[in-house]
């Protein structure tokens, strides 16, 4: 029977061309949208490497020019914040803090190896505790690093793999931006600070050492006790405003920053999904219409098949089968096209993402085809054989 259906569709390829190409395009759009969705979902399901619950971010914009004075005020702010019972810890951080709309890229290189672009975060020693990072090799920064010969850094596993492969990175030197040398003292499992939907990329944590180089950072991460709410937030902001008069102080939760980042990823996904849904709806209507029309045109054939010994159920199965074969023709073309993405590595995306998207798209197209064929096929099966033969 399957051979028969393939032969039938193949011999009717001219009249089926439109349907096949509709399925082909529908598949490609689905594949594109699903690739994006799968990419995002896969990234989302991977560990972030830190915990943002109960972490707030204070951004301080100074109204004075003197860096020394600024740092002094920042120090006072930090002292004050740490004095509250609700606060578990604070950490100075560069402006590219978790989920911030800010980046700071540096080139990292080992010896004469390739240059790797990495995100550089300047962080205080308390950062690991505030963000609850998991250091899996070596150690995190401590006071003893004050006297270190090289600036110590902690890197994430992704960067370790890129620079050192399977070898240990601890104690090794990295050339940063082709100028300074820094020494790796620890490796964290994961750190995906840019977005929950982004792939993990190389990260370098550089130790903030105010003794060696005094810098005004203006960003303070604050871990508060669970359940600390708006009342404390208001009280703290009021107290801090008293210390940093005329400064602009902004207090937000990292959770809010995460939500903003999420919107940035969701908007294009939702837009594409809407467009895709609309397209699929159109294709479904077209498919349904053509199938409906085909069946009314093929009354005689249906009557004949019944006369030759096909049961109503077999007619039903034949029509469903035909649509599946049609879909298969469209899908063979579509898959041949789509498979180029993982083969040629058009974008730097894991091949797995494409294969999953491909699988889901194929499944959805088959479902769509069966969905559209269901009712017309039932009508075909219900055609009275004597009537159908009579009409010709």
């Amino acid at each position, binding site marked *: 029977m399957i051979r028969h259906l393939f032969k039938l569709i193949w011999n009717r390829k001219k009249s089926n061309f439109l349907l096949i190409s509709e399925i082909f395009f529908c598949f490609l759009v689905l594949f594109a949208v699903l690739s994006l969705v799968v990419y995002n979902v896969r990234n989302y399901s991977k560990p972030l490497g830190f915990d943002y619950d109960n972490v707030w971010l204070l951004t301080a914009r100074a109204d004075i020019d003197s860096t020394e004075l600024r740092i002094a005020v920042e120090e006072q702010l930090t002292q004050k914040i740490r004095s509250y019972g609700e606060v578990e810890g604070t950490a100075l951080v560069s402006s590219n803090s978790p989920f911030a709309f800010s980046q700071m890229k540096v080139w990292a290189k080992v010896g004469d190896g390739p240059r790797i672009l990495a995100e550089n975060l300047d962080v205080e020693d308390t950062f690991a505790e505030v963000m609850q990072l998991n250091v899996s090799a070596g150690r995190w920064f401590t006071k003893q690093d004050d006297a270190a010969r090289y600036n110590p850094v902690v890197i994430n596993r992704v960067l370790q793999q890129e620079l050192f492969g399977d070898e240990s990175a601890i104690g090794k030197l990295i050339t940063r931006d082709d100028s300074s040398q820094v020494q790796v003292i620890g490796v964290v499992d994961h750190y995906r600070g840019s977005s929950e939907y982004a792939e993990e990329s190389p990260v370098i944590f550089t130790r903030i050492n105010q003794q060696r180089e005094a810098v005004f950072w203006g960003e303070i991460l604050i871990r508060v006790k669970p359940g600390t709410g708006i009342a404390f937030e208001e009280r703290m902001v009021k107290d801090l405003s008293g210390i940093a008069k005329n400064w602009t102080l902004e207090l937000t939760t990292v959770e809010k920053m995460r939500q903003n980042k999420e919107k940035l990823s969701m908007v294009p996904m939702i837009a594409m999904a809407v467009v895709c849904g609309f397209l699929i709806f159109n294709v479904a209507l077209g498919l349904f219409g053509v199938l409906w029309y085909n069946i009314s045109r093929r009354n005689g054939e249906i009557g004949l098949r019944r006369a*030759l010994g096909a049961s109503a159920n077999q007619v039903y199965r034949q029509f469903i089968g035909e649509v599946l074969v049609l879909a298969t023709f469209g899908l063979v073309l579509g898959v041949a096209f789509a498979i180029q993405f993982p083969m040629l590595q058009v974008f730097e995306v894991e091949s797995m993402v494409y294969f999953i998207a491909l699988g889901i798209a194929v499944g959805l197209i088959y479902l769509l085809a069966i969905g559209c064929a269901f009712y017309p096929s039932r009508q075909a099966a219900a055609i009275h054989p004597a009537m159908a033969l009579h009409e010709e």
Partner: protein
Amino acid sequence: MITLKNIEKVYQTKTIETVALHNVNLHIPKGEFVSVMGPSGCGKSTLLNIMGLLDEPTNGIVEIDGTPISRYRDKELAHIRNQKIGFVFQSYHLINDLSVLDNVELPLLYRSGTSASESRHMALTALEKVGLSARTKHYPTQLSGGQRQRVAIARALIGQPEIILADEPTGNLDSVMGEEIMNVLLTLNRQDGTTIVMVTHDENMAQKTERLIRFFDGQQVSDAKTTAYDYQQV
């Protein structure tokens, strides 16, 4: 082979009720070649459809091989059609997108357990019987009317049915081609013993068969052995 008892067929539409067959009693023994004649609209096709289990009578009993079929379900009816009955239609009913060979093989598609090579072989044999061995790769639209009807006959006989029901098989053909088709059917009847019921408008054709039943307005009006049937050849 086929027995009809008190067959009544009424077509009910919204506005009118048509009595297509009324009180039809018939027995067609195995191996007989029967022709059915009558004016247009007298119920000949309806009769054939009921015999071929394509339509149900409003009243009455249809027996195939002595078994009443009224209790059968769709699947079983389809099975009997496939195993025992071959159809030939006035308008051939070939599938234009399939080659001659594939058209002839169609009934075997609904018969489980026939391998592709077996089907191929049976189709070639059937085409040989109707004298169309040279046209297997052609498509129906590339054939003459007579050739198409021979393909349809090959299709009807491929499954070696005991009964062939032919509804005006020569209706669309000129007399020469009609003659050809008639000879194919006669040979089938005589050599293989196939029971044939043929509807025709052609008195000459009818006279070549063994028995002629005349219908008028849904009722049998005469039923007689023909004189011209060549019993010598049987």
